């Protein structure tokens, strides 16, 4: 047995697994492993999958064109968000570059009656729920904490504290079950979005426990984008994340998160499992964050350029474009049209951002309590009087 005197601290290279370092069979940037569900290869080739083809049977050329349009438009306004931050119009932006397919596939798998609980990067899911992209700006410009109606959209407000929403989603799904809304094709389900870093949080673990013991109809949709700010997946887990589900007693599955058809099919299956009473389900969308964690972050300090180049070859949009052109014979005019639409959306997004009014001075006092508070009301009155005293100065 060693004594404290014998012990010497390991060097930093010893303690930090590198990109080639395999921990318990998992490598953060490998191809996803043998269990990865993939329906469209990075080369744009549609490959059969006996288990999930049925869930993508309706993906004809028109539907794939619509999915392509979703991907391009979401990427376009996301890039505009980055630019607006760089120009000082936004305090921060949380980019989704590289995760478009994971989000569009999952979002388009949802039925109108379903409910989504996002973290803060789910701009693509918001798009599929009919939330206008301009509604996402207030959070990052500092005018509000989320301006859309969560109930009307079936899309809860962004949750910034990591993993909190997994418990909130589970509770909501328990409510769906208690109300008898589970069972049959018109049943309801909930989907909860979180990242690989969140899987280290206690709330995610507790969400898994609660969902399992109450058979809650909730799909836990983990976008494993390989990095939790600067911490790699190896710092979160010794086993592939989807395999954790087994320990809680429900299904876990890993899908190619850069393959929009596979994400659509697998999420449809997972939601169907939930709405028919077989949930919960854990989906690990194996993808990659191609940009920074947020605009405050510098990924060149912690990851290698080679890694980014590798993932560029697996781009979620390019493979759909290649498939549309080579296999389905879609003409260039379609792509030009989508590009023009994307540019118009970006222009509207930018203009809205610049035009957003500052909140009224008493914004901070409003809706603190549903039933009001004498102390807050008194502070509001005193503040407004103080504010008014500057008028005409």
């Amino acid at each position, binding site marked *: 047995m060693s004594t404290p005197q014998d012990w010497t601290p390991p060097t930093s290279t010893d303690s930090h697994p590198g990109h080639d370092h395999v921990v318990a069979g998992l490598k953060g940037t490998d191809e996803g492993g043998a269990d990865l569900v993939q329906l469209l290869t990075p080369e744009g080739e549609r490959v059969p999958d006996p288990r999930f083809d049925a869930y993508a049977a309706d993906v004809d050329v028109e539907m794939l064109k619509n999915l392509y349009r979703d991907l391009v438009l979401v990427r376009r306004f996301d890039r505009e968000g980055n630019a607006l931050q760089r120009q000082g119009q936004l305090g921060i932006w949380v980019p989704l570059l590289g995760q478009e397919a994971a989000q569009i596939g999952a979002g388009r798998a949802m039925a109108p009656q379903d409910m989504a609980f996002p973290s803060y990067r789910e701009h693509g899911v918001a798009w599929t729920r009919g939330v206008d992209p301009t509604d996402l700006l207030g959070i990052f410009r500092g005018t509000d*904490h989320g*301006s859309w109606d969560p109930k009307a959209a079936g899309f809860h407000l962004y*949750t910034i504290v990591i993993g909190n929403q997994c418990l*909130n989603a*589970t*509770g909501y799904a328990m409510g769906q079950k208690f109300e008898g809304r589970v069972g049959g094709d018109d049943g309801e389900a909930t989907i909860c979005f979180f990242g690989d870093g969140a899987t280290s949080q*206690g709330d995610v673990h507790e969400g898994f*426990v609660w969902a399992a013991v109450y058979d809650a109809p909730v799909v836990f949709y983990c976008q494993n984008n390989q990095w939790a700010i600067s911490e790699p997946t190896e710092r979160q887990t010794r086993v592939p994340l989807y395999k954790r589900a087994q320990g809680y007693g429900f299904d876990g599955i890993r899908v190619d998160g850069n393959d929009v058809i596979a994400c659509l099919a697998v999420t449809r299956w997972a939601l169907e499992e939930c709405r028919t009473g077989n949930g919960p389900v854990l989906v690990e969308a194996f993808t990659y964050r191609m940009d920074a964690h947020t605009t405050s972050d510098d990924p060149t300090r912690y990851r290698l350029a080679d890694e980014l180049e590798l993932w560029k070859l697996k781009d979620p949009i390019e493979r759909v474009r290649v498939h549309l052109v080579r296999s389905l014979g879609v003409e260039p005019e379609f792509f030009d049209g989508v590009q023009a639409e994307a540019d118009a959306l970006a222009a509207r997004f930018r203009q809205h951002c610049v035009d957003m009014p500052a909140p009224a001075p008493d914004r901070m006092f409003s809706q603190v309590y549903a039933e009001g508070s004498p102390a*807050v009301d008194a502070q509001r009155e005193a503040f407004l009087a103080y504010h008014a005293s500057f008028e005409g100065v």
Partner: protein
Amino acid sequence: MAVLTLAKAINDGLRAAMERDPKVLIMGEDVGKLGGVFRVTDGLQKDFGEQRVLDTPLAESGIIGTAVGLAIRGFRPVCEIQFDGFVFPGYDQIVSQLAKLHFRSQGKVPMPVVVRIPFGGGIGAVEHHSESPEALFAHVAGLKVVACSNPVDAYWMIQQAIASDDPVIFFEPKRRYWEKAEVDVSAEPQPLHSARVARPGSSLTLAGYGPVLKTCLEAAEAAVADGHDIEVIDLRTLSPLDLGPVFDSVRRTGRLVVVAEAPSETSVAAEVCARVQQECFHSLEAPVLRVTGFDTPYPPSKCEEDYLPDLDRVLDAVDRSMGW
């Protein structure tokens, strides 16, 4: 009129709320078959079923976090935390989500959730079972915080807390669970967020809440022999504080002693002192004094008689105030 213990009064109040509204749920560890470690939820699962009274897994963040989700869905969950010192794993969900969702959504997502916390010492318990963390919640905007002190208030306040569209942290004085009183269930209750004059008097004001209220009343009785006519105010609501009755009282008596079990620094008692000196400065005949727990972790139970404000410490403060 029924004579009820404080615990039974809460039980009856929960039952009444559950009968009135099918969306009211009880959630917590051991609240079902066992009826809670203090039996406050006794018999409710038998009568309302496992879907209205949920014996949950053992994780406080899970209890609060799923209650938040259920409230988003339209339910009115009442969460039981077994003991004060166990609330901290759930504190993140309380502060980050429960308290802020109404404000974050600009009123689109109300949070009608009650978190029941048996609090305070005096039962000879081990560590983490005797704390008074109310200031930590009263400091959080978006939460409402109340503490009951007697069976009548317990019966009404729990129902009012459940009916509120705001999240309410509901503190129950655990060493008073077995105190009895007559409860008139047909009476008109005081509003939830209102202080109450528990004993009228003219020479000094004692203000307290929860378990020390009884101590204050006993002190007022004992002080009669010394010729003091003490007014006792039960604060009842800690956020928002209803200090109007305290100001009125202090303007008449000129003297205030605030009593609480919690440590004194940056406490609810400290806030009462600050506001009273601001509003009643010209009426004060003596500095506002505090009788509280000490600024230490809650001690081993063999020390708690010294830690908790007792009759002698309250009377000592009364003497100091009167002798100023």
